[in-house]
């Protein structure tokens, strides 16, 4: 059985996109950790709820960057594949 070069590259790109999306793993753990700490802080100091919430959201946004980079890599591999053009 012979494999078309284009099909091979496309299939490997799809696998690569799936692996790139794994970047969300660490972000999920990190954001869950931050949210848990935020809930703890609100429990200890309920009157500072607004400040804690905005700090938590900004921290989460920065932590989310790596997951979004993974998503962008996955999207490029799926929809704007640069490797197929090099065949």
């Amino acid at each position, binding site marked *: 059985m012979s494999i078309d070069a284009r099909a091979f590259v496309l299939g490997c790109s799809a696998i690569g996109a799936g692996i790139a999306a794994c970047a969300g793993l660490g972000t999920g753990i990190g954001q869950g950790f931050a949210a848990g700490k935020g809930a703890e802080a609100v429990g200890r100091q309920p009157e500072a709820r607004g400040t804690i919430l905005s700090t938590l959201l*900004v921290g989460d*946004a920065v932590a989310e*960057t790596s997951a*979004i*980079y993974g*998503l962008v890599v996955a999207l490029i591999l799926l*929809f704007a594949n640069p490797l197929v053009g090099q065949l």
Partner: protein
Amino acid sequence: MSENLSIKHYGIFLPGGVEITQTLVSMWIVMGILITFAVIARCKLRSFKPVPAGFQNFVELIVDIFDNFVVSTMGERYSYFANWFFGVFSFILLSNLSGLIILRPPTADLACTAALGLSTFVLIHFFGIAKNFKEYWKSYFQPLPFLFPLNVISELAVPVSLSFRLFGATLGGFILMGLVYNLFPMFLLFGLPAAFHGYFDVFAGCLQAYIFTILSMTFIRGKLPE
């Protein structure tokens, strides 16, 4: 994969090679809404009364909320940034919400978010040099002089991460909505997409607009004197 699932732009070419894409059209619609609102608010400004009611109440409410937001993040001294950030915030918010009326969100295009990220970049360095000249250059050699290249890279990463965050979040939501509409069986398409729109367009859209503005404010504030 069905044709509808592709994230390709659909556009028409004008004579002269200018392409009118979906992003451009929905951006014009968002700009039209914002400009119309601004013009109406400006015309009504003459008839504003000391005791607000109705439309005046709404305008004063949003301006007041935003002024307080900027003052609490950047301090009383830099409250004039509220003008710029109110425009940016309302543009990003309406762009993200435009997915609700079947437009392609303009922020799902890297060109749009890169323009927003670059304007933050210009503001950071313009105000850093103009207001805080000595400290600005000194900050590149902190904490140790040989870390200069790393400081430059971290400055250059700011607009990239700002624009890619907004772009990735919006485009991800856009693609997931496309998946929901194309892959779900017919009987699931009554009412259920509203929940997904509520999450991806309304919740994530408001959150990303808020995060873009507050991160820009924090970065600009970091280069300004106390």
